[in-house]
């Protein structure tokens, strides 16, 4: 792998950019790998990367039925934050956020991490109490957040209307080191680093079956033939239930569409991320100048990557009250991603009933921010065979044992 640097750009500029090589190799499957990871989204690639970097396991294949980063990694609103109420959540999301801080240097790939600050508006008295409590919890967890006044909100984000008729701004939970990153670059950067370590990234290769002997995983059947492995990890978000069925177990997951949309590009007007959980809307401005808006999830199962129109209507209607200046913006694109929702709205990083088979799923509406932390914890679990401290609380058995990590109450819906 050639190192990207200012010098490399200057060198290539002088010779007509003929010396750039492909960021990752197009690989065809070998007969057998130590570890196969199904799903080349952010979480799958990060898992492979930390398997190599932290544990020296590089005989790894990442197989993907579509193209690299073409699922929810390329469909989210790129928000990164770690202001969660529950301790296990704060631990893994803060680990993740801190890894984002140095990711561009670690991967030698510019992921454009922008710690511009995230504020979650409190628009009801209940939210004020809830976020004050979260700020106290974060102080104990070592996550830097504070509850700020409406005046401070207006200073940080002048385009906000504080005294809207239905949704007045009563304060906000402010995390100054939270922010955004370039979502595709995260997947591409990890893929390049994995490929450089000798791992195979195999695209357009759909898993059609999971093979096992005596309760132990031995490989997968794919559209490119049989591939053997010692350990298998499924990291396929919305399609986890489908894959788990092949491996012979069920999951506490339902898949629904979550929508986002972007406006036409406008001049810089907002340099923070604002989330308004009461109205299920959040907004930030991309580097291109588009206002990036995230909405609510559908209330019923579907795999359409489209979403219901009335959710967008509700989100935009409410955001216009909070940001009156966006009322005349034209919206350019709208899309949906299939999110995997668990009963307690917290993820699953777990061993499974099939020995040697691991699963990472259930990130629901909040997976992008968790990519590095999730990969770190999942790699540790695969390498050691049991979950480490970051992943321990996120086991599948918590649903049977009633040990929920209840972020559906703690974080509201926008997650």
């Amino acid at each position, binding site marked *: 792998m050639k190192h990207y640097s200012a010098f490399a750009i200057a060198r290539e500029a002088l010779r007509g950019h003929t010396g750039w090589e492909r960021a990752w190799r197009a690989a065809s499957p070998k007969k057998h790998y130590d570890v196969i990871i199904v799903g080349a989204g952010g979480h799958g690639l990060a898992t492979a990367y930390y398997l190599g970097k932290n544990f020296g396991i590089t005989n790894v294949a990442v197989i993907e039925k579509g193209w690299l980063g073409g699922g929810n990694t390329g469909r989210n609103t790129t928000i990164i934050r770690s202001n969660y109420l529950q301790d296990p959540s704060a631990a893994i999301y803060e680990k993740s956020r801190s890894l984002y801080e140095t990711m561009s240097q670690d991967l030698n790939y510019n992921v454009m991490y922008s710690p511009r600050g995230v504020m979650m508006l409190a628009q009801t008295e209940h939210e004020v109490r809830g976020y004050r409590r979260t700020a106290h919890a974060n102080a104990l967890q070592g996550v830097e957040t504070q509850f700020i006044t409406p005046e401070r909100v207006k200073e940080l984000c002048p385009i906000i209307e504080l005294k809207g008729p239905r949704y007045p701004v009563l304060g906000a939970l402010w995390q100054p080191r939270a922010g955004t990153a370039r979502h595709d670059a995260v997947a591409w950067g990890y893929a390049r680093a994995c490929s450089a370590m000798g791992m195979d990234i195999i695209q357009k290769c759909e898993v059609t079956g999971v093979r096992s002997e005596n309760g132990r995983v031995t490989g997968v059947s794919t559209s490119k033939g049989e591939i053997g492995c010692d350990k298998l990890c499924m990291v396929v978000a919305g*399609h986890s*239930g*489908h894959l788990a069925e092949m491996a012979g177990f*069920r*999951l*506490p*997951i*339902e*898949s629904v569409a979550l929508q986002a949309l972007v406006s036409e590009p406008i001049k810089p007007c907002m340099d923070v991320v604002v989330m308004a959980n009461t109205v299920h809307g959040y907004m930030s401005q991309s580097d291109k100048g588009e206002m990036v808006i995230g909405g609510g999830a559908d*209330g*019923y*199962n*579907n*795999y*359409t990557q489209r979403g*219901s*129109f*009335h959710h967008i209507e509700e989100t935009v209607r409410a955001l216009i009250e909070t940001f009156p200046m966006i009322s005349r913006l034209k919206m350019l694109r709208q899309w949906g991603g299939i999110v995997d929702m*668990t*009963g307690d709205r917290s993820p699953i990083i777990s061993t499974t009933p099939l020995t040697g088979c691991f699963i990472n799923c259930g990130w629901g509406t909040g997976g992008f921010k968790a990519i590095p932390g999730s990969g770190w914890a999942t790699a540790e679990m695969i390498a050691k065979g049991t979950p480490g401290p970051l992943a321990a609380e996120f086991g599948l058995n918590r*649903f*049977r*044992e009633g040990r929920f990590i209840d972020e559906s109450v703690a974080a509201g819906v926008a997650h």
Partner: protein
Amino acid sequence: MLILTCPYCGVRADETELAPGGEAHVARHGPGASDEAFEAYLFLRANPRGLHYERWRHAHGCGKWFHAARDTVTMGVVGTYPAQVTEPPAELSRPRGS
């Protein structure tokens, strides 16, 4: 927009008039049930890519709960049927045309 016909009042209602109620025909186990059975009732879901039986409430209409058979990939509605059954009627057990 998703449109379902309420089997009670006959109104063709779009989804803003309805409240989704999740997977249908999930077996509820009584007192003394095992942890596994109760986990299955509370959390484990079929989550199919394809035909899905689900509960809906005609919330802004007659207020009744009913069942619907719907394809989660095509969003095609196969049919709706009353709530007082423990399994879907035979004619709705497969998507139309397949």
